[in-house]
């Protein structure tokens, strides 16, 4: 959390003035009991009407000045807190955008979103509160103590002991309850997970007739939650009664002492009233402080989470400019002894992969689930770095490319078809902001998505809702293909991008890609042989190993894995032949 404080830069004035004015206000409050004391001792005792009126105006004036100070403080505190969080959000967003895929995987996107939203809100309210109250409450407590000391040093001892006891009570209960509350939260999460599970699995649960069991499980989990809540509730419910008793005992002792002092003429009656008032003030502030600390611990926890993201370094370094001098003469895409092991993974996902592809060729990548197909194509635009070996594109090591250049060169259609809120046009122009109307329609036509757009009254201005929910899975997939084509990439990667398309559309898409002018080098990842059998080269992967490479016919003759895959999809032909 501490390292985040540098984002307060530019708000130094506000973050000093805020607490300072709050201190002024608190100081004024401390004068109130003194004014009342002298009103009693001087005004009432001497029946001095003017003096009483004077003290009255002093009290009103203290109120007005206090209000002015406090408003100023609130303004500065709010400004600093809001500004701080704005800058922090900007920095975090920027930072997240330059993290590499490895870090994104490690963090997980839902955690990243949480850092940007709920944690930031927590920090903002915590910051605002602490600028306002963090100094004030301890100051009032200390101030009351000092004032008591000034009035009577013996009374100060009673104050000291009372403050100590109160602190022990308030913080003791807090220390005991915080971990208990955490446990209750976990139990609540469990209840929430059970509910979710029940909803997601509703079809299976009903198919097996398990409704009663589910109810029993829910009730049982909730019972444990309720018990936890009641237990921690009964402990934290002790705070008020205990502090109340402590303060009142303190007051009783204080008055007893005061009585003795007055008897000996050391103190006046008004002074005793003042001491009594200070005692009440202390209680109030300590309770406020305790609430404040709860908020503060939440803020620090959020702050630490944000900081740890900010401290995360991108594991990939890109050169400022693509190093074209080292360009070698070799085929367009070359994998040379490439191995890949993901961060934290036990085994390699790709082992010693070697192949070469010429410009304009179509490459099919096939293999079972989890065999490394996606991992392989992800190395081409340098989403991940190979742990061993080199990936060459156009004779240059991918690590020598400038980030933008390599990303613009490769068009990727990921497995999950994601579109963004905005018009179809906005979405399609993601890779090339300057794309013309004609280019867009051309891309749509190749991606077999022309008819989708033509069906919409607004055509290219049709508004896509968040995550593209107002389009079907197949429509989204074709849109994402068009989006990659608008970019006019030199390499096009279709990562199982036709899975939601029916066979006819899939076939038409492949035909259209074949007939493109300025045909890019195309990588088609698929589980179905049908989608890749016309490719110039087919790469067959099995458990991270490249077990076969060649054309459909060649592989059918030589590659056992390929034969099996093919056979499993065309069972009858093989058995008949």
């Amino acid at each position: 959390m501490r390292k985040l404080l540098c984002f307060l830069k530019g708000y130094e004035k506000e973050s000093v003035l805020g607490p300072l004015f709050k201190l002024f206000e608190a100081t004024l409050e401390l004068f109130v009991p003194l004014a009342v004391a002298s009103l009693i001792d001087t005004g009432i005792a001497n029946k001095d009407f003017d003096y009483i009126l004077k003290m009255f105006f002093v009290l009103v004036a203290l109120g007005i000045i206090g209000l002015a100070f406090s408003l100023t403080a609130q303004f500065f505190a709010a400004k600093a807190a809001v500004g701080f969080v704005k800058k922090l959000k900007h920095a975090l967003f920027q930072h997240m955008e330059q993290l590499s895929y490895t870090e994104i995987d490690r963090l997980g996107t839902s955690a990243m979103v949480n850092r940007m939203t709920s944690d930031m809100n927590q920090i903002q309210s915590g910051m605002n509160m602490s600028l306002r109250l963090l100094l004030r409450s301890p100051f009032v407590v200390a101030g009351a103590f000092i004032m008591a000391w000034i009035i009577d040093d013996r009374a100060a001892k009673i104050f000291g002991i009372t403050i100590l006891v109160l602190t022990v009570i308030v913080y003791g209960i807090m220390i005991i309850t915080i971990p208990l509350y955490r446990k209750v939260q976990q139990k609540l999460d469990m209840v929430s997970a059970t509910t979710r599970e029940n909803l997601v699995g509703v079809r299976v649960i009903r198919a097996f007739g398990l409704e009663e069991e589910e109810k029993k499980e829910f009730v049982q989990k909730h019972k444990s939650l309720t018990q936890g809540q009641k237990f921690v509730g009964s402990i934290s419910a002790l705070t008020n009664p205990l502090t109340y008793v402590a303060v009142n005992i303190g007051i009783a002792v204080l008055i007893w002492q005061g009585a003795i002092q007055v008897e000996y003429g050391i103190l006046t009656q008004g002074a005793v009233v003042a001491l009594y008032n200070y005692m009440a003030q202390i209680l109030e502030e300590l309770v406020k402080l305790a609430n404040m600390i709860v908020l503060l611990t939440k803020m620090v926890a959020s702050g630490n989470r944000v900081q740890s993201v900010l401290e995360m370094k991108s594991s990939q370094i890109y050169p400022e400019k693509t190093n074209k001098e080292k360009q070698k003469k070799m085929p367009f895409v070359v994998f040379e002894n490439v191995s890949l092991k993901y961060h934290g993974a036990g085994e390699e996902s790709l082992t010693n992969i070697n192949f070469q592809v010429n410009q304009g060729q179509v490459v099919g990548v096939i293999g079972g689930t989890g065999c490394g197909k996606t991992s392989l194509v992800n190395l081409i635009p340098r989403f991940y770095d190979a742990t061993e070996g080199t990936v060459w594109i156009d004779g240059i090591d991918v690590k020598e490319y400038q980030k933008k250049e390599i990303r613009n060169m490769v068009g990727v259609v990921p497995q999950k078809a994601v579109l963004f809120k905005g018009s179809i046009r906005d979405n399609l122009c993601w890779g090339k902001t300057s794309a013309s109307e004609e280019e867009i329609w051309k891309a749509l036509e190749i991606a077999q998505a022309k008819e989708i757009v033509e069906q919409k009254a607004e055509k290219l201005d049709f508004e896509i809702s968040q995550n593209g929910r107002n389009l079907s899975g197949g429509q989204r997939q074709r849109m994402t293909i068009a989006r990659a084509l608008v970019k006019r990439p030199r390499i096009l990667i279709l990562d199982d991008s036709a899975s939601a398309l029916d066979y006819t559309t899939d076939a038409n898409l492949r035909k259209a890609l074949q007939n493109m002018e300025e045909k890019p080098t195309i990588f088609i990842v698929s589980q179905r042989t049908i989608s890749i059998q016309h490719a110039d080269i087919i790469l067959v992967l099995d458990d991270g190993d490249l077990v076969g490479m060649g054309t459909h016919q060649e592989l059918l003759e030589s590659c056992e894995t390929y034969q099996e895959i093919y056979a499993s999809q065309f069972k009858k032909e093989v058995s008949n032949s």
Partner: protein
Amino acid sequence: MTKGSKQRQILGKVWNYIKKYRLGVCISIILAGVVVAGTLYLPILVGQAIDFILEPGKVSFEKISDILWKTVVIALITALLQWIMNMVNNTVTYHVIADIRKDVFERLQILPLKYMDGHPYGDIVSRVIADADQFADGLLMGFSQLFTGVVTIVGTLLFMLSIHSGITLVVVCLTPLSLLVANFIAKSTFSLFKEQSVTRGEQTAFVDEMIGNQKIVQAFSREDISLQLFDEVNERLEKCSLKAIFFSSLTNPCTRFINSLVYAGVALSGALVTIQTGAITIGGLSCFLSYAKQYTKPFNEISSVITELQNAIACAGRILELIEEEPQIPELENAIELKRTEGNIVFENVSFSYTLEQKLIQNLNLKVEQGQKIAIVGPTGCGKTTLINLLMRFYDVTSGAIKIDGYDIREVTRESLRKNYGMVLQETWLKEGTVLENIAMGKPEATREDVIAAAKGAHAHSFIKRLPQGYDTYLTEEGGGLSQGQKQLICIARIMLVLPPMLILDEATSSIDTRTEMKIQEAFGKLMEGRVSFIVAHRLSTIRDADVILVMKDGNIIEQGNHEMLLQKKGFYYSLYSSQ
């Protein structure tokens, strides 16, 4: 008015839940009264004690000692009662919430699937969890603060009146100011807060989209543009947040200011009364001052409690809405318990649509005989899954009837109908629990050997064996570390264990690689011998040996027959098949 009456309606329903604990509520109310009285009485005692401290030589220690002991004892009793009151409040609140949640959950078990399919899970979960929690907070706060607040105000008034009516008047006249100010601020900041929450929602949506899909953002080099867009929202949010936070934070200083005016007013009038009539002592004045200090607090608390309560009522409304949601049509009184069926299924003029506007299945007639394998093919969205929803009676037909062994399926119990089917869906679902428990879901009494045999049948044994604790490996929500294909194998093993008379496979092998799929098909083939099965598939190669292939398009069955017949027909099936 309508809003008010709706709130009253909700409160009435909430009361039905609280009623069960009315003893607790009564105790809590009585305790609150006693606690407030004790709290208010103490300043009087202290005031009396101060009155015995006049000046040197005029201090009556005996009396002071008496009073102080009394103070301590009363403080102790009050504190004890307060603790008990808090615990009673907690107990009532948490039990009410538990009851409500239980009712919601039970209702979820009998809601028609239409409801689940039509509402995002997140929304339902947030009603069960977050809304119930907010409601609990509101209820707890309402309980402990609203009541004590009112009692404190009334009590303070009475105590003040008992000391001096004139000064009381000063307090009573000035305090409403504080309420007015607080109310004014709350009203004028409402629109600011609304603006803030709208802008914040906009930002969250943006972050959700861009950070959630960061990989795509980077793949298209959109980092700079999306940062620019983010900054634009961020700037706007900063501005409206600052306004909302600042203006709302005026409440405390302003009410505190009014409070200090009251305080000064009491000091002035008290002093004057003391000088002129002597009707009030110094101790009385000090007691008055501490009342004046406390008097506005319950007012402020009540106004915040009321906002909180309104929020709580809104939350309660959302939960109650769910509890009162129309359940599925209840079973007939004399519903038949379907035994193991022969598998003779007849669709008679079945029509069905999810919404009134969009017709889906119309006048479908179909006869399935014992042991047949029925395949359903067609493009996405043509109604394949709908057919399965109808078979399992997840949805009821709009008109016509589905009969099984001669019984209309609406005449048999849902449970007995569904238990006759074994269903594997494309979307796999595993429960939190061990692998063993997951496989034994439909047959909890199965032995370990049975489960392993089923897993072997589903070709899941080899990977389960390699899991850290084998069959006892605990799977977390959503199946944790298992791949989609592995999850599907477990789901298939589940069915292998139960061996129901009919099978429904909805794209059941879509995320399994084709080699494993082939092995599973073999196992299914054995399983399906003599059983009726319904298979939805993308890959036409897997369904060629089906007895009947239903080709669906736009909700209608446009072709029907076996593979050879359909190919000869050279219709839609032919074009689908030849494109593969």
